[in-house]
């Protein structure tokens, strides 16, 4: 049984509340440090190399435009369409993902089929939370796409090493400042399969993969305040064991998504390149 955590660079993109899937038995922890075209942009944009047509206007309320983008199997266009009506699986929640989701992610990223994703109680009790209609969620995603900050510049093309595609800038900033590149921290979003509320981790605040893994364990595999233990049933299966995320003995695996949309196992590349 594997769990999944998705780490994303970029904070953009929202999903409707219900597209968060639960932890299925085949989930993997996925760390995605995708190349984000816009600092506050949906990482859904990445693999498509989308331009949002018409240039990017400075959003006066930049922070209002982003959503945590939680990658779930349902987000993949091959199993989900842009509206709730065509999800094929009867056991999965209907989900409307942004149609901008990278197709590259589909083949590379998904570790479970949409069919196996079901809104279980327990670890995924925040599926469908907060209670906002799918349509509204998607609308905000679409708006976020259209109002990316102008200050962003993509430097990914220059990088040969896929792990160095993490830009040295604060992705977590919601202020529309043009000097985001001056910041030293490198926040990436981490999502765990089945838990729609992601967390931000400053990669530059960690010195090694071990430290990062420890932080992630603390964040995700212990009871956090954001998860109500009351409803939790499956959590017993996910008790964290120290430093097991990296050596394969945990139920979860750390992976990330590179700019090509391929899922990579964390740890292959020396930490300094991260």
């Amino acid at each position: 049984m594997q769990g999944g955590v998705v780490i994303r660079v970029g904070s953009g993109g929202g999903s409707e509340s219900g597209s968060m899937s639960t932890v299925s038995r085949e989930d993997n922890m996925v760390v995605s440090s995708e190349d984000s075209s816009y600092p506050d942009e949906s990482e859904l944009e990445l693999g498509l190399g989308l331009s949002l047509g018409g240039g990017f206007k400075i959003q006066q309320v930049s922070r209002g435009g982003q959503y945590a983008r939680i990658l779930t199997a349902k987000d993949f266009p091959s199993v989900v369409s842009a509206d709730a009506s065509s999800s094929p699986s009867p056991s999965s929640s209907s989900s409307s993902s942004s149609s901008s989701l990278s197709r590259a992610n589909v083949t590379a990223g998904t570790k479970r089929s949409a069919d196996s994703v079901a809104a279980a109680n327990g670890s995924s009790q925040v599926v469908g939370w907060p209670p906002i209609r799918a349509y509204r969620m998607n609308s905000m995603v679409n708006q976020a796409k259209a109002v990316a900050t102008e200050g962003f510049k993509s430097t990914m093309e220059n990088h040969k090493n896929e792990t160095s595609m993490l830009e040295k800038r604060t992705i977590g900033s919601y202020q529309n400042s043009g000097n985001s590149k001056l910041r030293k921290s490198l926040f990436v979003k981490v999502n765990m399969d089945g838990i729609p509320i992601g967390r931000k981790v400053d990669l530059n605040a960690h010195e090694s993969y071990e430290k990062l893994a420890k932080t992630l364990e603390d964040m995700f595999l212990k009871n956090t305040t954001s998860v109500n233990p009351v409803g939790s049933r499956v959590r017993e299966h996910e008790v964290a064991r120290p430093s097991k995320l990296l050596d394969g003995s945990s139920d979860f695996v750390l992976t990330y998504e590179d700019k090509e949309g391929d899922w990579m196992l964390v740890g292959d590349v020396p930490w300094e390149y991260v």
Partner: protein
Amino acid sequence: MESSEVNMSRDSSELDESARGSSSPDLALERVLSLLKSHRDRSSVSLVCKDWYNAERWSRTHVFIGNCYSVSPEIVARRFPKIRSVTLKGKPRFSDFNLVPQNWGADIHPWLVVFAAKYPFLEELRLKRMTISDESLEFLAVSFPNFKALSLLSCDGFSTDGLAIIATHCKNLTELDIQENGIDDKGGSWLSCFPESFTSLEALNFANLTSDINFDALERLVGRCKSMRVLKVNRSISLEQLQRLLVNALQLAELGTGSFSQELTFRQYEELESTLSSSKNIHTLSGLWEAKGLHLPALYPVCTHLTFLSLSYAPLQSGELAKLLAHCPQLRRLWVLDTVEDEGLEAVGSSCPLLEELRVFPADPFDEDIIHGVTEAGFVAVSYGCPRLHYVLYFCRQMTNAAVATIVQNCPDFTHFRLCIMDPGQPDYLTNEPMDEAFGAVVKTCTKLQRLSVSGLLTDLTFEYIGRYAKNLETLSVAFAGSSDWGMQCVLTGCPKLRKLEIRDCPFGNAALLSGLDKYESMRSLWMSACHVTMDGCRQLAREMPRLNVEVMKEDGSDDSEADKVYVYRSIAGPRRDAPPFVLTL
């Protein structure tokens, strides 16, 4: 009791059409009763005596069915021979949040087949959370020559092809309202399907469709439909195009703009402003996607007579909102994003003394790093300025018991109190205590409360309060709350008017479920998911209450004994015959 569902179980002998009643007093009574519009009144009337029952059923032209599985179309048609307007609701509300799997049901088609036979003069169909296919839309379009109004909210299963068919065939269409559906948007050509000879449209809402439509076709359509009073376009319509539409539709009462962010020349802006000044009938305004502070002043002339303003897709900041609201003294209903923050809500409090309804949606519900949005302070500020407030939907990240107590003290007339503290199980952030006293204050003070959604860290005490004080409560939504079965028991034994109870992720189990045995038949439905109910408990419920449908949906990988999702509802139609394999009827 709002629908005829329960009443239909009695007097089944009365369903014979020929037993109409022979004497003229019945016809006079029918005439009188035909003036009754409220379905609750009608339900009451039908219970008086046999004659009144008959008179009522012959005079009823609109039927409201809150749960499509509570009754069958055949039963409806047998009892009410003269229906021209149908409102149907299907899936449990939590399907809006993807808690109900796809293909669950609530297919309109069997209804349409019966209606085509029994109500050939059907004029209106309003659906919420139903599944409707393009084939069904086609069937609708060709079966009902007098069809006038179609409203689809939160439905799925259809595409814009279906809309094209409606536009092509429904010659008498007055209303086409497509809202927040899971629609397969294949393109905007459907709008061009309205024939050039077609002039009857009064209400058109395609705001939630994404594809571009043919603007010329829309312009001509609006131009020739002189009775149009509701026009809500989608984001593909620019400001310039909006102006061109408005100039030919100055009679509009409800306007939904398209994208509000086009770069306008000065002249264009002036034209827009001038046209809006002439639109003196607009009382409802929505849309405003990507609205920029720059263009909002063009709206000021409209704002003076606005009663309903929806900015729920316009991420305004506090200053922009404040400036806009300063021109909206008549506002009764306001929907905003939490980008306006507490400061923006202060402006609400100071500018809109007549406000009755406020909805604050989160612009970014998932990102934990967000430290913005609204807090308890904004809500309190509104409550001081808007004593008439009775409907609130508020998404926030922090709240205190004291704030809520103040709020309801200022606004004791709440009928709908929906508070969503977005972090599940979060306590009062100042005292770290549960939010029990907050909701206690709500139910104690707001005696007219009909609908309540709770959130935050809550113990059974909250539910004790609800059961003890919420005597008019009809709808209760609970998530991540409670400590034991006792909580749910309090509600089930205490709230006499409870009709809908939806619960998720709470520690309520079989004892709680079974404590409502006496209650469920007087309710529309119960939903429990991710609680501690087991299959045995559900089976017991089903055994003891044969007139209830007890349906369970299990999750992949859950224990055999766990009843992951439970949906219980009264029905005179018996168990579902169209249930998919994952819905187990016990």
